[in-house]
């Protein structure tokens, strides 16, 4: 067997060594610029073992409070995701190019893009100012960001629905609502469910830090323990967070397997 010494015609060459080298050089220069190799900074890495040692053993006393606050975090994520799904489906349908023209889809896609450019924690901060401290601000913040994000995932899925199916129905002049109800939604239903579950998992993790801005959940305690240097309680909070996130991921993956056999 012989090997081909030169790229085959029509075959794209692999990313060149020069490009890989250039990326490495840029990354290294950024690390230098950010002080990663500054001796004073390097010396501070010595604090890490002391910090970890200070977290052990975890303090069990705040456990009931932390579990309750984590349940609140999951509820914030659930309510926020549910609102987002309810808003995203119609918004994504209106943003679908195979259903509507540029006059509708382009401005709507732009608005959705603006919404998702703002992270959920900033939305939560805005709602803390609007509705006050507490989980409601967290729910609204989560819902806003998720609506922007989920709508994009969904309109891309709706656009990917086989055009031929849509055309076969369109010839019968059944109207846009029927096209959505009987072609786009059933064909993309599995994807809608899958992405909604993914969004919920993501929001459980994201909601954990909403407490940092006073929007409810376990984040409030995490911030408080860091500020008062109570690292043992902090480690308890992180264990509770980890346990809930793993549990939600597990349940979510089981639901996905149940409903999405493919």
């Amino acid at each position: 067997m012989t090997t081909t010494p030169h790229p085959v015609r029509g075959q794209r060459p692999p990313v060149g060594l020069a490009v890989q080298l250039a990326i490495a050089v840029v990354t290294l220069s950024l690390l230098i610029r950010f002080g990663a190799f500054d001796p004073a900074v390097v010396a501070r890495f010595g604090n890490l073992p002391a910090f970890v040692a200070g977290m052990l053993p975890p303090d069990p006393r705040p456990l009931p409070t932390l579990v309750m606050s984590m349940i609140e975090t999951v509820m914030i994520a659930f309510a926020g995701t549910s609102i987002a799904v309810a808003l995203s489906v119609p918004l994504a349908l209106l943003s679908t190019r195979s259903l509507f023209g540029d006059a509708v889809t382009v401005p709507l896609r732009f608005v959705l893009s603006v919404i998702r450019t703002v992270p959920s924690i900033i939305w939560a901060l805005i709602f803390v100012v609007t509705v006050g401290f507490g989980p409601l601000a967290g729910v609204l913040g989560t819902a806003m960001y998720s609506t922007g994000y989920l709508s994009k995932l969904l309109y891309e899925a709706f656009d990917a629905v086989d055009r031929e199916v849509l055309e076969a129905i369109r010839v019968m002049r059944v109207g846009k609502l029927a096209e959505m109800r009987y072609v786009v939604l059933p064909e993309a239903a599995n994807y809608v469910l899958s992405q909604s579950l993914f969004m919920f998992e993501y929001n459980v993790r994201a909601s954990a830090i909403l407490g940092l801005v006073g929007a409810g959940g376990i984040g409030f305690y995490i911030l408080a323990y860091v500020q008062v240097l109570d690292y043992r309680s902090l480690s308890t909070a992180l264990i509770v967070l980890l346990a809930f996130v793993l549990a939600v991921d597990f349940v979510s993956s089981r639901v996905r397997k149940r409903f999405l056999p493919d």
Partner: protein
Amino acid sequence: MQLKLEGVWFGYRNPVMVLRGVDVVFRSGEVTMVLGRSGSGKTTLLKVAAGLLRPSRGRVIAVDDSGEPLSRPKIGYIPQGIGVVGNMTVMENVLLGALDRNRGLGTLLGRFPREEVERAEEILEQLGLGGMENELVRELSGGQRQRVAIARSLMHGAELVLADEFVSQLDPLTTIEVLELIRSLKARGIGFAITTHDVHLVPRYGDKVAVLKDGKIVMERLASMTSPEELVEAL
């Protein structure tokens, strides 16, 4: 009913024209085979005929038997990939054919009048799909999906069905079954325009053949007056 394409030109990107002055007539009660090589414009021709694409020049007009124009002709369209909704049941797919006459909240919620459901059951029975109402379409064989697509067109009340490469992906036995079914529907007054590149199907199942080459109809005659050899030459 007759669906007439008169001097139809069409291009996806001007100035490259896929159809260049096509004149052809599809009639109910008649099977027209549109023969052409890959890339000859067969799919585009059917899409223009179905009203999915607007001609750049020329016109598509539907008229009744007395020559009066029809504003809402009953046309069915079956694309190359069959165009059935895989995640819905056979019954749900067939009922889609009744949507244009049953608009409203009820049908959007999935509720159809009893007589429409009974009509759908009758059609499914006629097409050999009786008892399969609750099967998911994505789990059916290719031949069964073709029947579901035909059933949906019948439910719509189509007098003419435009079918793109309708039997190209079926095995020979299923192809014959489906074409025999089309023959029996023709006897009931339903017309078909079927695109194909299989010259052997034309004399056996077509009443008329139109050969499309480079966006033009280069031959149009009775299928019984042609031989596969002549058709190959025309291609």
